């Protein structure tokens, strides 16, 4: 808490002080730039290679220089990805959007309500609830997922969309973030004033608190969305049939086909991998502001 507060205080000052040319030698500056450029090249070249690879056909992929384009086969690759096994790739994409979108939306709403309750009310057991939230960060995913598989198969939820959606509704990290955001944005006095005016608690939450928490809520949603989109162990365990798979599980399956049955789907896998990055990249760039504050805030508290 103290770190972010200090950061907020010191940042206007910083902007005035920086840049500070007297303090650094030119040679030192150049050395830093070379280091950063090398790190950037390391970060970007695999992505570049993936883009190039997605435009090549099988022979191009195996026989030409991987870092540069040869004959353009992007359209036929896309056509192949979308029509392979009756367009199963589109189905996986829709599933990924369904689980990440709906699951995170529900999860965010529950998290905001819980965070608000924890931050602005003093009820017995509040400490215990918060301890559960923080304690759950240490629980290995296997400890939850395997018994969940058994419990869900008892009630017939395994291999249905519910198997992914229900676990997404309860996200302790979202609750933790929501509590932190409530503390930072909702003043006690405002709640008092609304109560004196005769507003009910539910109304206060839905028409005042939620509106003031749009930034915090968007961050919580974004992080939950990314997490669900990237999930691997949970869908691998709980979803058995191809129809309910996510993009991740589908690509995993395709990339294993070669060792398993000798069918080489490499160019399909790579084009699919590139496609599966796009929604995530658009989302992250569009919501850059929220995302940055979320990553750093969550980390510093």
């Amino acid at each position, binding site marked *: 808490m103290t*770190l*972010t507060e200090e*950061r907020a205080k*010191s940042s206007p000052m*910083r902007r005035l*002080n*920086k*840049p500070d040319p007297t*303090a*650094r030698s030119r040679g*030192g500056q150049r050395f*830093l*730039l070379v280091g*950063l450029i090398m*790190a*950037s090249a390391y*970060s*970007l070249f*695999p*992505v570049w*290679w993936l883009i190039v690879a997605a435009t090549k056909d099988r022979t191009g992929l*195996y026989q030409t220089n*991987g870092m540069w384009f040869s004959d353009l086969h992007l359209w036929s690759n896309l056509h192949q990805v979308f029509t392979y096994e009756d367009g199963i790739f589109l189905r996986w994409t829709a599933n990924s959007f369904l689980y990440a979108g709906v699951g995170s939306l529900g999860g965010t709403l*529950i998290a905001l*309500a*819980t965070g608000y309750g*924890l931050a602005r*009310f003093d*009820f*017995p*057991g509040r400490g215990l*609830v918060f301890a*559960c939230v923080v304690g*759950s960060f*240490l629980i*290995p*995913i*296997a*400890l939850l997922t*395997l*018994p969940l598989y*058994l*419990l869900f198969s008892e009630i017939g939820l395994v291999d249905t969309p519910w198997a992914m959606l229900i*676990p997404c*509704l*309860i996200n302790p990290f979202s609750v933790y973030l929501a509590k932190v955001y409530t503390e930072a944005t909702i003043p006690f006095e405002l709640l008092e004033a609304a109560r004196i005016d005769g507003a009910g*608690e539910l109304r206060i*939450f839905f028409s005042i608190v939620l509106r003031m928490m749009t930034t915090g809520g968007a961050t919580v949603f974004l992080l939950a969305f990314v997490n669900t989109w*990237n999930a*691997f162990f949970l869908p691998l365990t709980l979803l058995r049939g191809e129809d309910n798979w996510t993009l991740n599980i589908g690509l*995993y399956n395709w*990339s294993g086909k*070669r*060792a398993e049955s000798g069918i080489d789907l490499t160019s399909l896998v790579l084009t699919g*991998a590139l496609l*599966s990055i796009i929604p995530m990249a658009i989302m992250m760039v569009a919501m850059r502001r929220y995302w940055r504050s979320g*990553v*750093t805030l969550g*980390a*510093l508290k």
Partner: protein
Amino acid sequence: MIRSLRWKGAAFTVPFQLGFVFLYLLPIGYAVYQSLYRSQSSGLGLGGSTDKFSGLDNYQQGLSDSAFMGSVLRVVLFACVQIPVMLLVSLALALCLDALTSKAASRFRIVLMVPYMIPGVVAAIVWLNLYSPDVGPLTSLGRVFGLDWNFFAPSMVWPSIGNLLTWHGIGYNMVIIYSALQGVPRELFEAARLDGASEWRIARSIKIPFVRGALVLTGMLSIIQMLQIFNEPALFRNVTPQTIDDSFTPIMIIYNQAFNAGNYHYAATLSVLLALILGVASFLFYRLTARETD
């Protein structure tokens, strides 16, 4: 606070509490319960099996299971190498960014964050293909320098996975450390410069101690993730089953016990054990780093 208001406040947390009971407490309880039983096939093994209470026998078996303990040790050793390397690189990059003008810094920051935007499974797929001797450019690049490396050789598997994890994790860790660096009061640098301190000295004596908290936190998160590593080795195994066996990491063993061997009781036992190991490791790491800051 008025009594009725308290309860209304508590009501906001009820959906979460109910969900937590069903999705966290109940499964954990069920796993612990299962870990105390063993299934015994009745008769000739054809008539199904019954569960029999076995106390802590499963735990004894788990602790003396050389495949499981070996995989824990393997992952811990790997963590001791990969995490410091990744955090050092992230710290160095954060310090570099901090020394640039804010405009240049924000450009580099976006570029360096690109790997973090890529889902872990996709990142593994991309690197697997980069490593691949058939389609990847790295093998032929190595030949140019006279290196005949094979990224899928048994001795190269951990460095290959380590490079993948480092590539994927640098941006995220760098941003956390960088934002902690922004909190250092700039007056301190002026004072130090007036006293004749070099930039390197300022970084070492002011900046690094100041971001210690962020380093401890990123280190802790990395340890928690590393002990549970599954995706990357699973994808490697998918492509080169001959180098990575199915007991490579603790979670892989647990998954196989549950879904290939059908031994849920033992899988539950091992996941409880892994949770305990994770708790102990986090506690030790926390104590080790907290004592020095006091």
